[in-house]
């Protein structure tokens, strides 16, 4: 809502020295979010005067026709002025910027020679004066303002305009009337209600009308004027105000309805009486009905749409936009003015259904004062009579349906208990009265909100009014009282540990968007029946290219990796921890919307949750380039499948889990370089080098590797049991065994470990060798076994026996042969 200060001043007796900025600060403190204060025309300096064009001399021979005008500005001699516009005639009154004046934007006017003549000033357009958008021609002043009069004053060219972002609860502030009332309360000065007009007592009715659906509309008012002069011009003051408020002047009849909507908050509609057929009825649409609206769109109506109809059918979308067929035009002389009160929800639905947002619907959705229609219609008629030479037609049509009056009962100290401040009953009553409530009672207050505050429904709504007007700044701060919380849960701590561990291992966290696409799933080479292809779709995605919700973290990370590589950081490891979205095959099609007037039963909550997808927490790592760079110390080391698997182990370690690794074939990994990751028998994820086709599809560096595992499948860490630390010396034994080349080292190690028994402290694979000495299809694995007893120094015999037992177990389970020599 754009509010010119001058307009506001008409209705509130603000002290003369109050500026737009002062007022903004007060209104902000009261809860109206003033976003900007625009200082309009303050850089405008005179002399700027009303002139009358005496004589026009047409100059030719230039690129465009030019006029040399003699203009009477009230001096002895007329001014000689060059003008390029052609929309005026001799005798017209215009605004002349005399030499020495300055127009908005620092445009200085002087006497100068142009087009071969001396030009003593400029004839101005509204755009040049900063009071309109039209720069197609100069401003021809309507009426007969005095020659030589100060045009700045006459036009209201200097003003402050407050732009207020009105919150949805404060529909009343979408009007000069509502803002003026707040300003009056803020300054404690008198308010003059622009709606305070007394329509005459009338018994006759105007154009016939009725309400067929009382849930759609509970007040419908029609009033007529006749003999309107369609050529009548909107006065300058009204045009300037409309412009300042952000609306474009159109024609007097339209401007008057817009002006009153801005001033009062009551949207109005004007019908050409000659185009109406029979009684007007407010009703819902019927199936198949159509209406061509003012924007030349023919709309198929929904049975829920609220319509204004006559004998011919629909003639207007109630509260949103008029119909083309009954529109007033440049020949309309008899006008029927509609002012009504529609159901906010009904208007809201119509507006969204038809995407028909308008200034009128915006106000109806947020609640219009139900007591305005009679007054607003009367004022509209008055203005059209006064400004458009129309004849006032006595009689008013007033159809209405009963409306419920809200009454709120609160303990007088309710605001005190909400704020933690002692206001006392008198303050509470005074503040509620300030905003227009009727208050009765002592300890228990019965509060009737004013008609313009349909948002006041609950006790806390009233509390807020009292507290904001008494000043939020006066609420004290009570230090928090400590409560007995349990701290982070094991799961929450684990997530932090995993993040720190991966960062410590040299991975950089990324938080990518969880949106993905069918192309991503294809690029990952996922088979048709892969579970990750079962996705949720966003109905209105940010980009049509990525309408799906991710079922794997990898696409986002891979794109981030490619982006880093593209920006010259190709040696990079990234990780992400986040949710993926897996629809449940047995989920109901729709999550139910439960009641809100009571707490839901556990089974109701369960029914809502059952519709939601599974949203497990995953962690993923991607890496490429050099994991360790070459340097003065020697060779570097490329990132590889082994790093990816080790990253998974890093994660598992933080959860106290031991990861078992087994070869697997699983997209998007390289079929020969893919590990399935298990904890016990539970598959928790995969790691390895990506499939070359995936690498190509995402434009990744060669040998890009990745790991993804589902943290939700890992149990939270159990407390660590302290090991017994033996102080006896270890006995170390190296063994090399030869196995089939395809035999996983992990199996050999597991067999050795098991065979070695309790004396084994640690086992470590330190070499893998293939070559002629070993034989085709075989490999040699060399391990260091470290033995130690908790209670004694081991003898060579004991250590040797344990080693032999280890080798025997490996031989039995993996066919390992002790390597000779």
């Amino acid at each position, binding site marked *: 809502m754009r509010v010119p200060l001058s307009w506001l001043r008409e209705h509130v007796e603000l002290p003369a020295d109050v500026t737009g900025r002062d007022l903004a600060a007060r209104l902000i403190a*009261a809860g109206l979010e003033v976003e900007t204060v625009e200082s309009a025309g303050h850089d405008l300096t005179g002399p700027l005067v009303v002139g009358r064009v005496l004589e026009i001399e047409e100059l030719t021979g230039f690129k465009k026709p030019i006029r040399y005008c003699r203009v009477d500005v009230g001096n002895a001699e007329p001014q000689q002025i060059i003008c390029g516009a052609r929309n005026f005639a001799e005798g017209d009154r215009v605004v002349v910027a005399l030499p020495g004046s300055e127009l908005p934007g620092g445009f200085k006017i002087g006497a100068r020679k142009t087009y071969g003549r001396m030009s003593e000033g400029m004839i101005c357009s509204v755009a040049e004066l900063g009071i309109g958008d039209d720069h197609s021609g100069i401003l021809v002043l309507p009426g007969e303002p005095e020659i030589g009069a100060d045009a700045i004053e006459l036009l209201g060219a200097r003003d402050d305009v407050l732009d207020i972002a009105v919150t949805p609860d404060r529909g009343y502030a979408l009007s000069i009337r509502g803002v003026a009332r707040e300003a009056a309360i803020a300054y404690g000065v008198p308010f003059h209600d622009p709606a305070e007009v007394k329509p005459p007592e009338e018994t006759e009715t105007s154009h016939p009308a009725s309400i067929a659906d009382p849930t759609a509309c509970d007040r419908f008012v029609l009033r007529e004027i006749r003999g309107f002069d369609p050529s009548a011009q909107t006065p300058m003051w009204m045009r300037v105000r409309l412009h300042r408020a952000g609306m474009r002047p159109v024609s007097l009849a339209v401007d008057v309805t817009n002006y009153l909507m801005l001033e009062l908050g009551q949207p109005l509609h004007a019908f050409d009486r000659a185009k109406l057929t029979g009684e007007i009825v407010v009703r819902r649409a019927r199936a198949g009905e159509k209406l061509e609206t003012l924007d030349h769109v023919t709309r198929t109506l929904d049975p829920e749409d609220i319509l204004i109809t006559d004998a011919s059918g629909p003639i207007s979308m109630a509260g949103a936009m008029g119909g083309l067929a009954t529109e007033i035009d440049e020949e309309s002389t008899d006008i029927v003015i509609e002012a009504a009160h529609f159901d906010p929800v009904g208007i809201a639905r119509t507006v969204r259904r038809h995407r028909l947002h308008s200034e009128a619907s915006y106000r109806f959705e947020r609640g219009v004062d139900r007591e305005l229609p009679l007054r607003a219609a009367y004022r509209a008629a008055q203005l059209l009579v006064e400004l458009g030479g129309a004849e006032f037609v006595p009689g008013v049509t007033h159809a209405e349906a009963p409306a419920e009056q809200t009454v709120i009962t609160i303990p007088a100290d309710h605001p005190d208990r909400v704020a933690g401040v002692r206001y006392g009953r008198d303050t509470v009553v005074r503040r509620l009265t300030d905003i227009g409530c009727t208050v009765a009672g002592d300890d228990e207050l019965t509060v009737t909100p004013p008609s313009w505050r349909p948002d006041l429904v609950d006790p806390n709504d009233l509390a807020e009014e009292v507290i904001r007007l008494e000043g939020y*700044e006066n609420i004290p701060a009570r230090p928090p009282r400590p409560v007995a919380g349990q701290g982070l*849960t094991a799961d929450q701590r684990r997530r932090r540990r995993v993040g720190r561990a991966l960062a410590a291992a040299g991975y950089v966290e990324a938080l990518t968007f969880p949106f993905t696409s069918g192309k991503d799933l294809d690029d990952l080479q996922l088979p048709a029946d892969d579970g990750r292809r079962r996705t*949720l779709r966003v*109905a*209105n995605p940010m980009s049509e290219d990525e309408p799906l919700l991710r079922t794997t973290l990898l696409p986002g990370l891979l794109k981030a990796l490619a982006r880093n590589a593209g920006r010259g950081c190709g040696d990079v490891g990234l990780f992400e921890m986040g949710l993926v979205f897996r629809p449940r095959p047995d989920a109901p099609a729709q999550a139910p919307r439960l009641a809100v007037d009571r707490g839901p039963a556990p089974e109701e909550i369960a029914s809502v949750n059952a519709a*939601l997808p599974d949203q497990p927490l995953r962690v993923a790592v991607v890496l490429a380039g050099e994991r360790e760079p070459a340097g003065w110390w020697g060779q570097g080391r490329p990132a590889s499948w082994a790093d990816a698997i080790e990253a998974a182990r890093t994660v598992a370690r933080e959860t106290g889990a031991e990861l078992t690794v087994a070869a697997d074939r699983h997209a998007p990994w390289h079929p020969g370089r893919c590990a399935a990751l298990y904890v016990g028998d539970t598959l928790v994820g995969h790691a390895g080098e990506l499939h070359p086709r995936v690498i190509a599809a995402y434009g990744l560096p060669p040998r890009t590797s990745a790991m993804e595992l589902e943290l939700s499948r890992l149990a939270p860490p159990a407390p660590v049991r302290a090991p017994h630390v033996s102080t006896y010396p270890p006995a170390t034994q190296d063994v090399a065994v030869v196995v089939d080349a395809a035999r996983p080292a992990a199996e050999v190690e597991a067999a050795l470990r098991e065979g070695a028994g309790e004396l084994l402290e640690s086992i470590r694979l330190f070499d893998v060798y293939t070559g002629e000495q070993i034989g085709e299809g075989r490999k040699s694995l060399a391990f260091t076994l470290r033995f130690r007893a908790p209670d004694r120094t081991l003898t060579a015999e004991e250590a040797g026996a344990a080693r032999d037992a280890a080798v025997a177990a490996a031989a039995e389970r993996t066919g390992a042969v002790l390597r000779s020599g």
Partner: protein
Amino acid sequence: MSASNQSYDPVEVSILKPDEVDRMRAQALQAIAAAANLEELKRARLDHMADRSPLALANREIGALPPAARADAGKRVGAARKAVAQALQDRQAELEEERDRNALAQEAVDVTLPWDRAPRGARHPVTTMQERMTDVFVSMGFEVAEGPEVDAEWFNFDALNIPLDHPARSMQDTFWIAGQDGPDGSNQSGQSGQSGQSGQSGQSGMVLRTHTSPVQIRALLSRPLPVYVVSAGRTFRSDEFDATHSPVFHQMEGLAVDEGITMADLRGAIEAFVRGMFGEGLRTRFRPSYFPFTEPSAEVDMECFACRGASTDTGGRSCRTCDSAGWIELGGCGMVNPRVLVACGIDPDRYSGWAFGLGVERTLMFRHGVADMHDMVEGDVRFTLPFGMEI
């Protein structure tokens, strides 16, 4: 050693003459001092302190002196031997130190050589900022509550007093989840949540949560009263993606529901939060505002931690953190709307509560001078690395 000979004339034992002992001593000391290295010192030790050295021989002859002369000669020779031994020890230490010094000097390296072999990692500042914020509340005894990112409309809107067709619903540009009418749900066409609907609801009844507030509802439904929780996480709005807005962002929210909670408690909690996050002595201010789930509602500003309001004085230096406004918009807050309590089955006549929420990215922007939202979502390691492990 020869037996004592009491008749022996001491004068005859020339080796024990005082002059002779002094000479031997001086000779030894000179040789020791002249030893340029440990090898030469070893030779000097053999020459002057070993069993066959003159002083050792002289010492052996003392017994040959008459008893009256023995004490005097013994004292003289002993002192000389002691001085020589001391000199040897000192010179030994000197030379050893010199040897070590030389050896270590040879092993010197260029310590300015880089050792960037191990890759460096970092956590995302949005993650660490969320943790930092929640920790301030956890230190006050709050627990961390969590909820899903795809949530039901009922949790995201209805239960939070954002009814269907209320303008408040369109304050938040919502990503709607499409209905699952295909057999596999994916790659189906058409059927957006907006067609044939009011645009304020989707066919599936699910949304990408527009705020962390549905977590409040879940906490109130699942926890015994009183409830003191904080939640942080990813939220979604179908906004344009520009330098200051991202369709995917993060919020943190605190909630307290107990008997006798007032706006004074809310202010106190926010002041404690500001102290915990930004340091002592910063004022906060409330501006009336509107959120459907709180009533009364307020926007919270905090005094700019960078200029502490000084930039607003005439002549004060301009402040980039607050644009010289002196205040920074922190977030929104208010008293939990009793309608929300009712929807959670809580008696609003007995219990009241406050809620406070703020944007994680926004906080990073003003606290750390992040200029462009894109930096926070692109995963460029150059942006994230400097933030390290904690913020």
